[in-house]
């Protein structure tokens, strides 16, 4: 692989990821509407929303806040580039973590009580899902002898049969990343909750659009990580199907559950998510998986 080819993939990833993410978001909203017996918005609705937001007059509560919005987008894009360049999985997760951290920091930098509480809830959400994401790298690394994505791709056989417990744990984490019920404590796309918009309460217009773009990158990235579970071997297209299936399961669960409080969310994430991964690690060590 030469440098030009690598830069090309990275560029394609940076351009394609928001397109795929926005489109997935559109399907998400359409499917959710259909599950509720409604007609639903057009598939391109998320793009209309973002374009419209870019055209609104910016209203800024604090200069720092805008910096954090840019940082969130920038770091998430960097993480996507890392994925496209097949870099270290652990490194990628840490960059993603730093990117996401910008949101509560931005929320905490203004004085609005809703924003403040949203920031706190967001931090609790990190506390719930970041350990799962980071720990999930461990059983993968045990399987493929290394943390790099290249190693996973060059591993001869698919990971899913040996790591399905980790896969389920990652699904839980993905529901939290996507802010779906029952884990939408800090903010939700419907904004019908006690915190109104949560962390994004004080963002408006173009800055909200930046954050939305960042979310699309984030979602594509986490779905790609799910896809890695079948990326090796000849049937590589199955990885896309598996990622989409995982995403569908999350949509279904979103529609059949109420929002949990943050304490039950934390208990569930740490109990079930980390428990599953730990069990997986133990089973790998025993050689049963």
């Amino acid at each position, binding site marked *: 692989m030469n440098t030009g080819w690598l830069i090309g993939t990275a560029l394609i990833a940076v351009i394609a990821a928001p397109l795929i993410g926005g489109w997935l978001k559109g399907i998400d909203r359409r499917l959710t509407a259909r*599950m509720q017996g409604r007609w639903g918005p057009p598939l391109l609705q998320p793009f209309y929303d973002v374009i419209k937001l870019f055209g609104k007059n910016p209203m800024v509560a604090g200069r720092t806040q805008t910096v954090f919005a840019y940082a969130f987008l920038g770091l998430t894009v960097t993480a996507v580039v890392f994925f496209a360049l097949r870099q270290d999985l652990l490194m990628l997760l840490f960059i993603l973590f730093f990117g996401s951290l910008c949101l509560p920091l931005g929320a905490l930098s203004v004085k609005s*009580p809703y924003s403040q509480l949203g920031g706190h809830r967001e931090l609790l959400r990190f506390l719930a899902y970041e350990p799962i994401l980071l720990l999930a790298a461990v059983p993968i690394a045990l399987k493929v002898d290394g943390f790099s994505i290249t190693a996973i791709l060059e591993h001869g056989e698919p990971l899913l049969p040996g790591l399905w417990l980790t896969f389920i744990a990652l699904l839980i984490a993905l529901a939290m990343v996507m802010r779906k*019920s029952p884990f939408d404590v800090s903010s*939700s796309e419907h904004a019908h*909750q*006690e915190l109104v918009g949560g962390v994004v309460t004080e963002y408006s217009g173009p800055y909200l659009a930046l954050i939305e773009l960042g979310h699309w990158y984030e979602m594509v990235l986490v779905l790609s990580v799910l896809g890695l579970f079948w990326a090796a071997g000849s049937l590589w297209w199955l990885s896309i199907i598996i990622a989409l299936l995982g995403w569908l399961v999350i949509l279904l669960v979103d529609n059949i*559950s*109420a929002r*949990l*409080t943050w304490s039950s969310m934390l208990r569930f994430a740490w109990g079930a998510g980390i428990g599953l991964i730990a069990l997986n690690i133990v089973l790998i060590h025993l050689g049963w998986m």
Partner: protein
Amino acid sequence: MARTVIPFGPQHPVLPEPIHLKLELEDEKVIGVMPVIGYVHRGIEKAAELNTFRQNINLMDRICGICSFIHSLTYCQGIESLIGVEVPARARFLRVFWSELSRAHSHLLWLGLLADAMGFESLFMQCWRAREMVLDISEMTAGHRIIQASCTIGGVRRDMDEEMVREVEKRLIALRQLVDSSIHGVFLHDPTIRQRTAGKGVLSKDQAEVLGAVGHVARASGVAVDMRQTGYAAYGELGFEPVVETGCDSHARVVVRTRELYQSIDLMRRSLTAMPDGRILIRVDGYPVGETVSRCEQPRGEVIYYLKGNGTNHLERLKIRTPTFANIPPLLAMMPGCELADAPVIALSIDPCISCTER
């Protein structure tokens, strides 16, 4: 985190009505609540003295859009007792029908809003889908989707013919099936809903009696108080047993309301079958003299009207005590000690109707 005060409302997506609650928080724990009211106050009681007592019927309909029929019913019953009129039997049964229709509408609305406050959008949509069937019946029989405005002094304003009764019957059966298949079971058994409501907002039986809770708040705490037991309109002839639960928490309130929903559908069907033929409206001459108290059961509890007439076209005084007003002290007793995330659910569990309360 130190002590903070969260302004909850007046504009807030969970509570569409403007009430301002100052929630005093310690971390995420609510330690004090301070309601600030007055955002919906219009001065209806004063306006009722300026209007003629017949114009007031339409004003009473619009005290609250959700229990509008029962407001005008209570008002009309008060005026009828002041003038001394006996309402025809058919009108009394039709009054029961529309009362129960607005109760079914209100209960479905509330169940949906509660689901929405818990982030359960799909259940919210299901409840409102069922509610739309109730609204269709309302539009067909009374001519308007929510403000039926079909009650008047001396009877009701609209009659129903055979064909319409059959059509309504058919729609009620369909409504019952929809509630059965997709609403009742979820509210009763879904673990996430149980987790958000069970044990939250506890109001013991003693507290309910001492603080004077009414409606489903009292009945969920085991106090069997329901104005329909007094047998106004045609409730006496139809036979009525209040729904009582002893859970004392938000989940018990949900259960009371889902059971009352079935009861309402049942009462509607029975009132349509038992309805005698005859006139629906009699001519009322004369002006209200003297004073009276009129009491009815609203979806949210007992409403009390005090009317004082002086023999002219205008009332001398009209005083309204709405159920939410009686339920605010119990709410203030439930709130302290809860988590912020539970605050809207508990506040909604008494089904606050601010526009009734502030008038």
